[in-house]
């Protein structure tokens, strides 16, 4: 209380003193009108009792005009306008200094002209300078410039660039609207205003998927556009196979990607059939941080995948949707209060049962599969300082096996966000969210009927602040805290007639918190983005923990004691200091060299010992036995743009150490296991690689080429000998190229070609029989590889006529997409399996299995009105 009083007191004194100086500015000049030398004039004013302070030798020898009867303020302001001196009121004095332009801050937002939705990552540049800014994850930007006239250029992929003149006389708020780029029939001459974010960005190794109608997200299998499948066409992002759900980023495991949908955590990003849970229609932006992880993010060892939902059209009501072989979708959006607030809601429902058994088997025991996604978003922008969002996602998969066994799983999230401009230079975001991932297996088969459930629920709060104190200097800071509550497994009798026992595994509780601070600044031709994140993790009771003999591995025979922790009692605490650094060295206007270092810690682990995760795999918090995984990544990259930024390219090398990877023993039973520590193996891994990316951004022909040369390995120590064995998902060469060509304003075609080294495979040296089962015997793991994978896909997009017969424009738009997946019917090998020959008993047979043995056509129809 005392200190608050002193602050108040000091504040009052300051305003009093400043008050004196302020009133002195209003005093009148008594000199006769005329032209005088500057310095003597100032001295005369000073002698007259005005508290002027200046050092004579730092002021120019200029002639100034004086008008009798004008105030000191008017006089000084006139000299400032004429570029002679600057002045400021400091303490009790009026400081007169050599002329320097004043600086003011422009802040504002960039929105789509039609829907008024915020655009993320739009580029704001000042013509004739290297000054610029980018809209943040909430669509806001802030840039501080000298007073006077400026030509501001606003550009964004998929939108027409435009420039706007600003006469800066004070801090200004602006709201820019950009128009979507209509199909460019001619190769347009792009002036210097094209987006050069590839070169100037101080966050290296980001893959960006721009989900707008005009971007070149290419349709995938069966004509569906899929966020995850498209991300695989970018360098450094891989999946183990066509039937695998998770993605591996720069040699990391599938649980090492932080997947955020409007800031809430997504635990399983795929439905059955490897369709991603992100309905592309409801998504605005996908950013994948593969290398440098900005300090605002943390919690996973490999990458951050940040997905933002669309906000909804603030100006008019729209309905859009589509139907394909796999799913049907419908979206409605529109203003709640025109120009101020909007809503968006969408539903996607699977149609096709992506399981063979529904076709091939007439049995009542066949499998039936379905999924559904519901997205909602409401946002309100009541004034230029505040925006409120409420967004939610509800996903569900349902899989019926056998007579009466039903598996249900899904993610649900709900986020509330408030963006507030505290002052022109200080932007703030406050978010709170709930995420849930759960699965439920119901087996009604009498009399062993049971219901088993597993659930992870997160309650999170987060705040982020961006303080832009100079156009080239920005401070980011904030904190986040997530309370994780995991119910790893409850298994109960289906009803009172069922005679299975009830099993409830202990609930796990953890609090994952972090503070971060980072600065983005420019020194000469170097752009720095550096800072740290300090993360902590508390594992709380109630829980019963076994104590194992210190010199033995945990097992049921090495338990020496049990300890009971009460509700809320701290079981284990971990913390990590995570420094982050990125340097962008601008070599010239079109090229830069970027260096980065990131350390990240992960306190949650997916419990899985299969090649690719299953929806019923559970997550586990770090605890007494399972330490956090930590990774450190170093990268260096050369970025270059060509032809006025029409082409962008990058070449990047990375090296990553993964410390304390969590793995499981062979054959470990991980289902309803109360003592997972007995099955855990902790190992070290490393990954390194070279990535090349070349992209053409504008024109009739757009597309890219991506190549990755990489290796991802796990370290094994045996008898003082260290060996590295490649991970199951390692692909030495990974090449993809994607192109879209606009043929007319109604027809466009696109193609994907991918080539990758086959994934590692363990081949048997021997076989033997045990009880008439042919058992393959393996000596060395992953010593061989599957044959190379390659595939070509083609697609054709055909838009319906835009104009009616009478020449008026049709209100509704619709288009068809035809796709051909695996055009030349290559039987890419997904895996080998080993079995006994059905013709010659006791002969081992290697069978190559291809998921797609043939060309797969697909069609979708989409509309908007």
């Amino acid at each position: 209380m005392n200190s608050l009083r002193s602050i108040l007191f000091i504040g009052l004194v300051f305003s009093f003193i400043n008050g004196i100086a302020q009133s002195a500015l209003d005093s009148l000049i008594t000199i006769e009108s005329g032209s005088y030398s500057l310095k003597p004039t100032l001295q005369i004013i000073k002698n007259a009792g005005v508290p002027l302070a200046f050092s004579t030798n730092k002021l120019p020898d200029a002639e100034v005009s004086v008008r009798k009867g004008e105030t000191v303020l008017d006089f000084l302001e006139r000299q400032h306008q004429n570029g002679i001196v600057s002045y400021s009121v400091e303490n009790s004095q009026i400081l007169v200094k050599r002329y320097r332009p004043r600086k003011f801050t422009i802040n504002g937002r960039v929105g789509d002209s039609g829907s008024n939705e915020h655009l993320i990552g739009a580029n704001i540049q000042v013509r004739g300078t290297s000054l610029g800014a980018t809209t943040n994850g909430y669509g806001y930007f802030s840039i501080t410039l000298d007073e006077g006239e400026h030509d501001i250029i606003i550009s964004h992929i998929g939108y027409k660039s435009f420039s706007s003149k600003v006469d800066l006389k004070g801090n200004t708020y602006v709201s820019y609207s950009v128009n979507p780029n209509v199909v460019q029939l001619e190769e347009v001459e792009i002036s210097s205003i094209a987006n050069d974010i590839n070169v100037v960005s101080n966050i290296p190794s980001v893959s960006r998927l721009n989900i707008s109608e005009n971007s070149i997200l290419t349709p995938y299998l069966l004509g569906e556009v899929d966020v995850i499948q498209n991300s695989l066409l970018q360098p450094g992002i891989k999946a183990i196979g066509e039937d695998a759900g998770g993605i591996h980023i720069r040699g990391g495991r599938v649980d090492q990607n932080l997947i955020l949908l409007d800031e809430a955590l997504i635990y399983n990003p795929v439905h059955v059939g490897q369709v991603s849970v992100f309905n592309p229609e409801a998504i605005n932006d996908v950013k994948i941080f593969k290398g440098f992880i900005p300090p605002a993010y943390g919690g996973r060892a490999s990458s951050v995948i940040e997905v933002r939902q669309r906000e909804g059209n603030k100006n008019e009501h729209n309905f859009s949707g589509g139907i394909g072989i796999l799913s049907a979708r419908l979206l409605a959006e529109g203003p709640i209060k025109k120009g101020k607030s909007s809503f968006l809601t969408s539903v996607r429902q699977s149609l096709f049962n992506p399981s063979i058994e529904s076709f091939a088997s007439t049995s009542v025991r066949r499998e039936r599969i379905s999924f559904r996604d519901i997205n909602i978003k409401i946002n309100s922008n009541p004034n230029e300082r505040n925006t409120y969002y409420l967004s939610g996602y509800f996903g569900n998969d349902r899989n019926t096996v056998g007579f009466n066994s039903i598996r249900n799983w899904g993610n649900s999230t709900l986020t509330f966000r408030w963006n507030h401009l505290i002052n022109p230079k200080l932007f703030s975001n406050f978010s709170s969210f709930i995420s849930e991932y759960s699965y439920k297996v119901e087996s009604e088969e009498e009399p062993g009927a049971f219901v088993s459930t597993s659930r992870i629920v997160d309650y999170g709060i987060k705040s982020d602040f961006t303080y832009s104190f100079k156009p080239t200097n920005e401070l980011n800071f904030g904190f986040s805290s997530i309370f994780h509550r995991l119910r790893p497994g409850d298994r109960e009798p289906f009803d009172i007639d069922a005679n299975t026992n009830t099993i409830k595994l202990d609930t796990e509780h953890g609090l994952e918190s972090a503070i971060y601070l980072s600065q983005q600044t420019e020194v000469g031709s170097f752009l720095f983005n550096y800072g740290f994140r300090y993360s902590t993790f508390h594992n709380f009771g109630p829980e019963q923990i076994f104590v194992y003999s210190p010199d033995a591995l945990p097992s049921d025979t090495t338990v020496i004691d049990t300890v009971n922790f009460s509700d809320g009692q701290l079981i284990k605490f971990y913390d990590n200091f995570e420094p982050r650094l990125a340097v962008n060295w601008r070599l010239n206007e079109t090229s830069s060299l970027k260096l980065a270092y990131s350390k990240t810690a992960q306190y949650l682990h997916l419990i899985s010992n299969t090649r690719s995760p299953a929806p019923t795999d559970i997550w586990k918090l770090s605890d007494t036995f399972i330490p956090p995984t930590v990774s450190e990544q170093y990268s260096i990259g050369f970025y270059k743009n060509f032809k006025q930024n029409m082409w962008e390219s990058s070449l990047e090398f990375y090296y990553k150490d993964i410390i304390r990877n969590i793995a499981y023993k062979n054959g470990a039973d991980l289902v309803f296991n109360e003592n997972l520590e007995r099955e855990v193996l902790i190992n070290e891994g490393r990954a390194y690689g070279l990535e090349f990316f070349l992209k053409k951004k504008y024109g009739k022909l757009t597309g890219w080429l991506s190549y990755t040369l990489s290796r991802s390995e796990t370290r094994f120590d045996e008898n003082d000998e260290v060996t590295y064995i490649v991970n199951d998902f390692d692909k030495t060469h990974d090449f993809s190229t994607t192109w879209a060509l606009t043929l007319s304003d109604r027809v466009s075609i696109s193609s994907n070609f991918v080539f990758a080294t086959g994934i590692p495979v363990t081949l048997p040296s021997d076989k033997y029989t045990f009880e008439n089962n042919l058992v393959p015997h393996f000596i060395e793991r992953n010593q061989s590889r599957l044959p190379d994978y390659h595939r070509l896909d083609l697609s054709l997009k055909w838009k319906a006529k835009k104009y009616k017969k009478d020449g008026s424009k049709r209100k509704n738009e619709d288009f068809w997409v035809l796709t051909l997946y695996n055009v030349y019917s290559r039987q890419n090998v997904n895996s080998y399996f080993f079995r006994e020959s059905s013709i010659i008993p006791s002969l081992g047979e290697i069978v190559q299995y291809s998921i797609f043995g043939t060309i797969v056509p697909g069609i979708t129809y989409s509309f908007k009105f």
Partner: protein
Amino acid sequence: MTLFILSCEQVVVIPLPSEQGLLVVEGWLTNEVERQYVRLSQSNSFSGTINPIITDATVLVQLRNGPSQTYSYISNGNYLSDTPYSGIEGEEYRLSIVLRNGDLIRSTWTTIEANTEIVLLSVDSFEENDPDNPGQTKTVFFPRITARDSANYENYYRWMLFKNGSQLTEPESIILQNDRFFDGNFIPNLFDAYEYDINDNMKVELHSITREAFDYLSLLKSQTSTLSAAASTTPAIVPGNISNISKPEETILGFFGTRSISADSLIVR
């Protein structure tokens, strides 16, 4: 699960690592009086056609603090005990083998577990479309079995189903169960994937096995049945309980286990 309708399989010939030729031991000692068996063979190249067997080893099973039973070679790698005998519940047994080169091969000690009774075996059925006669349905019969687990003890079980005297190995030849969900309770099972017709002889056996045997069989099962798609386990050696005492660094494959058998049978009517 994914679009398997478009998938395809093809037998291929690819270069494999060179063969190891390891000794493989298979043997079970039951609680029933019979000529107990042990089978000795050798692993060979995965794509090889022959299946080498060992015919000239000395084989005996020892009871801890008790007499040994000697086994003699019969055929196809099988050795049978010279006289019928049974394992005694609660007692520990060990297999010892002396190879022709003098190497001593031994299993760990393994206990005969207590028997678990089958309380009820009955027949259940369902109707499904008959693949041979489109438009027609047929009745599929399957066993419904209840056993009673003993409380406060970790029990490990293996089921074997026989149809007219032969073991049903499809869809699975190794059916394992533990009492984690049923401790001290009835263990209900509907084996609806094992199909029987009217008038078939339906026989079921419930084997109480040790935890080590259960772990061995689970790993063996994962290595023989699910090594294919993304959801599968990674290939690995299946470690057993046999070692070469003379040359400890040498890998011996296989397992010598004990089992207590309960059986029940009926004719499907």
